[in-house]
C-alpha cells in the first residue's frame, strides 16, 4: 500500500484545483455539503493514484469526473432510499450531468466565491465559509486562526450553508446587473481575510499570517478567472504592497512602528515590484475603483526612499478621489492626515473637527489618536498627551494601547526634561 499523504507538488496541485472542482459540482448539483464530500473523495483518490500512475493529462477534468460520479451515486442512493421510505414512485430521476467538463464560460471559482460571499451572510460567516470552501483549510485550522473552538467554527460554517440554502438564491450565477455588487462583496471578504492575517500579532497567533498568504493566493486565483477586471488586479496589488511592509511594522519587542518610522530596507522589494506592475496594468484599463486607489497610495509610499521624501500632494489627491467613491470613515480620516502633511496640521485638525461633528467616527480611538498626532505636530504637547490617553482608553487592541500610551509617555517625559533643563 502506498502512503495516501500527497507529495508536496501533488498537494499544491490539488489545492489549486479543489475550488474549481467544488464550484463545478455546486453549480451542477446545487448541493453544497454533498458536493464537498464528493470533492474530498475525489481528492483522496487523486492523492493515492496520481503518485503511482502519474498525473492525468487534464487533472481538473479527471477530478470533476470522479467527484461527479461519486455525487451521482450518492444522489441515486438517496433517491432510492427516499423511494423506499415514502413509496413515492413519482420521484423524478436526478439530473445526471454527463457533460461535466471544464468548458464553462463563467469560471467556477468565481461562482463558488459569489456563493460563499453571499449577501445574506455576516462578514465572519462569509470569511469562514470562503476559507473552508476555497482555501483548502480544515475547520480546525480556521478555528485556530480565529481562536475559537473547532465545534464553534464547524457550527458557524454549517449555519452559513443553511442560510444560503434558505435564501433560495444561493447557487445562481448573479445577473449582469448584480454582478458588480456581488463582486464587491467577494473582494471585501478577501480583503478582510488578508487583513485578519496582516494585523494579527506574532507569537501564539503566528498561524494567522497564513490568512494573508491564503487571501493573496485566492485573489490570484480569482484574477486568473477574470483577468480583465481592474479591481481584482487592484486588490491583489494592494495586498502585495501592504504585505511588503510586514517585517518593518513591528520592532524587536513586537511593538508597533508607524509607517513614517519604519526601516524601509526591510520592505519586500519583490512584492512591491509585482504590486506596482499589477497596478500599472489595472490603471491602464481605465475603470478606477477603491482597491486601485488604495494600491496607488501604497505605491506612492513604496516609491519614497525615506518617509520625508513621500509625495504627499499626490497622496492627498488620491485620497480626495477615494473619498468621493468610498463612504468608509477611515478614508476620511486618512484624507485629513494627508491634508495635514500638505497644508499643515491646523488644516488637518479642522477636518477632524468636521469628522467628529459628522458622527460616524465619534468615540472611535483612531480619531483621537490622529488628533493627538496632529496636536503634537502643532506643538501642543499637553493636548496631544490628553488625546493619546483618550485613544488608549478606547482602543480594543492591546498592541495599539501600548503604542498610544508610549506616545503619551514620550511626550510627557520630553516636557519634564525640557522643564528640568530650563
Amino acid at each position, binding site marked *: 500500500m502506498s502512503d495516501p499523504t500527497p507529495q508536496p507538488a501533488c498537494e499544491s496541485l490539488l489545492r489549486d484545483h479543489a475550488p474549481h472542482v467544488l464550484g463545478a459540482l455546486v453549480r451542477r448539483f446545487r448541493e453544497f455539503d454533498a458536493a464537498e464530500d464528493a470533492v474530498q473523495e475525489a481528492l483522496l483518490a487523486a492523492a493515492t493514484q496520481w503518485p503511482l500512475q502519474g498525473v492525468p493529462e487534464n487533472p481538473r477534468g479527471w477530478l470533476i469526473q470522479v467527484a461527479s460520479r461519486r455525487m451521482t451515486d450518492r444522489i441515486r442512493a438517496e433517491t432510492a432510499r427516499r423511494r423506499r421510505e415514502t413509496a413515492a414512485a413519482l420521484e423524478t430521476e436526478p439530473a445526471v450531468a454527463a457533460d461535466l467538463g471544464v468548458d464553462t464560460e463563467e469560471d467556477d471559482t468565481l461562482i463558488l466565491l459569489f456563493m460563499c460571499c453571499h449577501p445574506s451572510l*455576516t462578514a465572519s460567516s462569509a470569511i469562514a465559509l470562503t476559507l473552508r470552501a476555497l482555501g483548502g483549510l480544515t475547520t480546525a485550522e480556521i478555528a485556530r486562526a480565529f481562536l475559537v473552538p473547532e465545534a464553534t467554527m464547524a*457550527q458557524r460554517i454549517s*449555519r452559513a450553508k443553511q442560510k444560503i440554502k434558505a435564501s433560495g438564491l444561493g447557487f445562481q450565477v448573479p445577473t449582469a446587473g448584480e454582478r458588480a455588487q456581488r463582486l464587491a462583496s467577494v473582494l471585501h471578504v478577501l480583503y478582510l481575510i488578508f487583513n485578519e492575517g496582516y494585523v*494579527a500579532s506574532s507569537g501564539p497567533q503566528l498561524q494567522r499570517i497564513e490568512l494573508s498568504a491564503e487571501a493573496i493566493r485566492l485573489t490570484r486565483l480569482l484574477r486568473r478567472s477574470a483577468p480583465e477586471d481592474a479591481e481584482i488586479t487592484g486588490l491583489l496589488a494592494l495586498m502585495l504592497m501592504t504585505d511588503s511592509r510586514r517585517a518593518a511594522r513591528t520592532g524587536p519587542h513586537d511593538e*508597533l*512602528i*508607524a*509607517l513614517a518610522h519604519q526601516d524601509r530596507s526591510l520592505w519586500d522589494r519583490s512584492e512591491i515590484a509585482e504590486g506596482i506592475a499589477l497596478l500599472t496594468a489595472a490603471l491602464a484599463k481605465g475603470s478606477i475603483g477603491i482597491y486601485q486607489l488604495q494600491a496607488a497610495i501604497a505605491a506612492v509610499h513604496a516609491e519614497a526612499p525615506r518617509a520625508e521624501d513621500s509625495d504627499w500632494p499626490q497622496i492627498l489627491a488620491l485620497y480626495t478621489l477615494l473619498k468621493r467613491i468610498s463612504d468608509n470613515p477611515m478614508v476620511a480620516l486618512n484624507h485629513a492626515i494627508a491634508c495635514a502633511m500638505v497644508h499643515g496640521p491646523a488644516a488637518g485638525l479642522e477636518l477632524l473637527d468636521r469628522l467628529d461633528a459628522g458622527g460616524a467616527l465619534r468615540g472611535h480611538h483612531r480619531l483621537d*489618536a490622529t488628533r493627538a498626532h496632529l496636536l503634537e505636530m502643532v506643538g501642543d504637547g499637553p493636548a496631544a498627551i490628553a488625546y493619546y490617553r483618550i485613544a488608549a482608553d478606547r482602543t480594543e487592541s492591546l498592541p495599539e494601547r501600548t503604542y498610544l500610551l508610549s506616545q503619551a509617555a514620550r511626550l510627557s517625559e520630553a516636557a519634564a526634561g525640557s522643564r528640568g533643563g530650563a
Partner: protein
Amino acid sequence: MKYILMMTGTKAGVEGYKSWSEKDIQAHFAFLMALNEDLTESGEFVANEGLAMPHQAKVVRAGTDGLPITDGVFPEAKEFLLGYWIVDVESAARAYEIAARLSAGPGPGGVNLSMPIEVRQIMTGRRDEPQ
C-alpha cells in the same frame, strides 16, 4: 468581538447555595448546560469555566524576597468570581443579551436569580499600522 461574562456571587449567596434542594440544583445545572449548547450551536461559544468554592481562595503577593505571601480571602471579601464565559459575538448588544440570559438563571423554586454579570470586552492582538 470577544467578551468575557463574569458571574459573581456574594458570601451569603455562596453559603445559601449549599442548602438548595436537589431539584433546584439540577434545574440550575441544566440551565447552564442548555446555555452552552445554544452558544455552541450559534457559533459564539469560546470558553466557559466554573470556579471551585471560594472558601480556600488565596490572595498571593510577592514579599521583598520574591517568595509568596498568601492570605485567605473568604472571611473578608464580599463578592467572589464564580465562573466565566467567553463568547465571540457580532456586537456588544449581543453580549449583553447573553449576559441577561445568564443572569436570569433559576434559583430556589425556579425563581430568576438576577445575578450580576460583569461584561468586559477582551482586547485583540490587532496591529493596525499607526499613522
